């Protein structure tokens, strides 16, 4: 089912959580709402679900206006940030809840409910824990139960609020691949909220980046990462080096006097050399090297005192034999320039 969000505005007291937001979510896609905390992403998700009502604007499901429908009428699957599992019910009862509360006429018979719950238990690979209570499960297991519970009612759309926010790094990594796999198997239109750009870029088909209650850019991960529409998006989607600069005849100049433009360079787009190479380079002094990990991170200081972060492969690092305190030459391979209208946050 496709979702269309039209001119949604929502205020909490004097705080504007969403400011005239438009967004289209195509059928069957996995879309990420990405933004820093307070950007309005969770509010938008709750408005789609009907848990929150917008001050103005409308929400359309398959072209039909659903703005005035109740939560139950919208038939959305919602996975809460802290799972919100029913603590007095077992895993089985949690998953069966949505089927058991149906009105008698549309409620499946007991045996059908059992079969459906068992199928979902297999899907989340927790069949052996059907009799456990939520408090007896790990974070990752609770998350999967919450997903199965939401899927049990065969929702038109699956909404997930920070689905991996409360998990440790390793579980998070495994679960997000599993979610992607699950989405490909089940095929239900899904929207998830996250503040983690890596998560959004890796899992989603489409990423909507929110900032201060507005949508900054919508696009495929490759699009938004490589063709950011604003300095905010560039800054938010990964580590950056920020320089103040100016443009003269199509050439960017960066040094301490330059003003008017913001020049961004990703740490992996900076090349370190022992000798100056080509015409574009600047001098820097190495302050710190962190070489434990797949990429080596070098912190340096430019000739005019600005900090600069460079990332390179282990092989390249060994080839250069860099040491702390050494003077090096840095060549930017790829830069992005935005007008310096406001401070990039």
């Amino acid at each position, binding site marked *: 089912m496709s979702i269309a969000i039209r001119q949604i505005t929502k205020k909490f007291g004097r705080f504007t959580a969403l400011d005239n937001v438009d967004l289209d979510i195509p059928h069957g896609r996995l879309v990420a709402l990405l933004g820093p905390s307070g950007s309005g992403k969770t509010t938008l998700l709750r408005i789609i*679900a009907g*848990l929150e009502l917008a001050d103005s604007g409308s929400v359309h499901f398959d072209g039909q206006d659903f703005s005035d429908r109740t*939560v*139950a009428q919208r*038939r*959305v*699957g*919602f996975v*809460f940030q*802290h799972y*919100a*599992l*029913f*603590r*007095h019910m077992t895993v089985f009862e949690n998953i069966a*809840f*949505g089927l058991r*509360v*149906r009105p008698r006429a549309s409620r499946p018979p007991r045996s059908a409910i059992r079969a459906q719950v068992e199928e979902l238990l297999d899907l989340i690979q927790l069949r052996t824990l059907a009799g456990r*209570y939520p*408090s*007896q499960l790990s974070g990752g297991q609770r998350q999967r139960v919450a997903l199965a*519970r*939401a899927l*049990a*009612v065969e929702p038109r759309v699956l909404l997930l609020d920070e689905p991996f926010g409360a998990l440790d790094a390793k579980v998070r990594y495994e679960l997000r691949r599993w979610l992607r796999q699950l989405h490909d198997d089940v095929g239900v239109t899904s929207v998830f909220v996250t503040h983690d750009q890596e998560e959004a870029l890796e899992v989603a088909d489409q990423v909507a980046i929110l900032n201060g209650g507005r949508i900054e850019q919508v696009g495929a991960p490759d699009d938004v990462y490589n063709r950011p529409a604003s300095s905010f998006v560039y800054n938010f989607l990964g580590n950056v080096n920020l320089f103040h600069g100016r443009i003269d005849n199509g050439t960017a100049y960066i040094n301490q006097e330059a003003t008017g433009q913001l020049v961004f360079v990703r740490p992996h787009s900076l090349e370190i050399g022992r000798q100056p190479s080509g015409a574009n380079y600047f001098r820097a002094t190495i302050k710190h090297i962190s070489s434990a990990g797949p990429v080596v991170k070098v912190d340096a200081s430019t000739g005019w005192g600005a900090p600069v972060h460079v990332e390179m492969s282990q092989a390249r690092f060994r080839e250069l034999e860099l040491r702390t305190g050494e003077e090096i030459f840095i060549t930017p391979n790829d830069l992005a320039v935005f007008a310096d209208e406001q401070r990039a946050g």
Partner: protein
Amino acid sequence: MVGTLHLRSAPAVGESRLIRGTLIAIAVVFLSVFLLAPLAVVFAVALGQGVAAFFSTFSNPDTLSAIWLTLVAAAVAVPANLIFGIAAAWAIGKFQFVGKGILIALIDLPFSVSPVVAGLTYVLLFGAQGLLGPWLVAHNVHIIFAVPGIILATVFVTVPFVARELLPTMAAQGSEEEEAALTLGAGGWQTFLRVTLPNVKWALLYGVILCNARAMGEFGAVAVVSGHVAGLTNTMPLQIEILYNDYQFVPAFAVASLLALLALATLVVKSVIEWRIARRGARV
């Protein structure tokens, strides 16, 4: 209330055996003198002239009527406060609305107002010389010096119990589970019965037990509106006072022992519930 206690329970270290012994001794002596001794006296005097004398108390029709009235008052006050308490705690714990602070203050009012004052306000409202008195007399409705007055007074003094027990639990649990139930298609009533109520059942039971104990033991407010009509408007605590003032010590203490037994039973049930809540808390 419950939360702050946990925060303060830092491990006590360094106190010498002498100080610990002294503190324990003070507590034991205090409890013995002010609680255990009076309790023992109640039973000793009640049974002082034999078991037969003890049981003959309960063949007195006035005493039986007092026990009956106490049960009736509790039977009305407890369910009334159960419904009010759940509704108020639900509203305060799960929603934001104008006047929330006032509602909380109102719920606490019976704790801060002397029961005698509460009783007096009912007399001033519903009494023959009171504000609504003439209208009530004209319509032949008797509230003061009658059973309805007793019930009203009992309801008033017990108002905070259920709501106060539920509030911290409901507020701490938030409304995510209810929202989850809604997204799964449950209606409001289903959500309440299947999600909200099971989550607060022990706190609820705890509140009911305390509410019941207070309803049966209330003296001040009931004394003012009762009028002490023997066999009609006396509750157990009032009957005890009347018997005692009549120098009928054995019957007075026999009825008192009933109330004391109620207190002990309440204590046992309360401890069991507290133990259950603590165990539940440890699991979550």
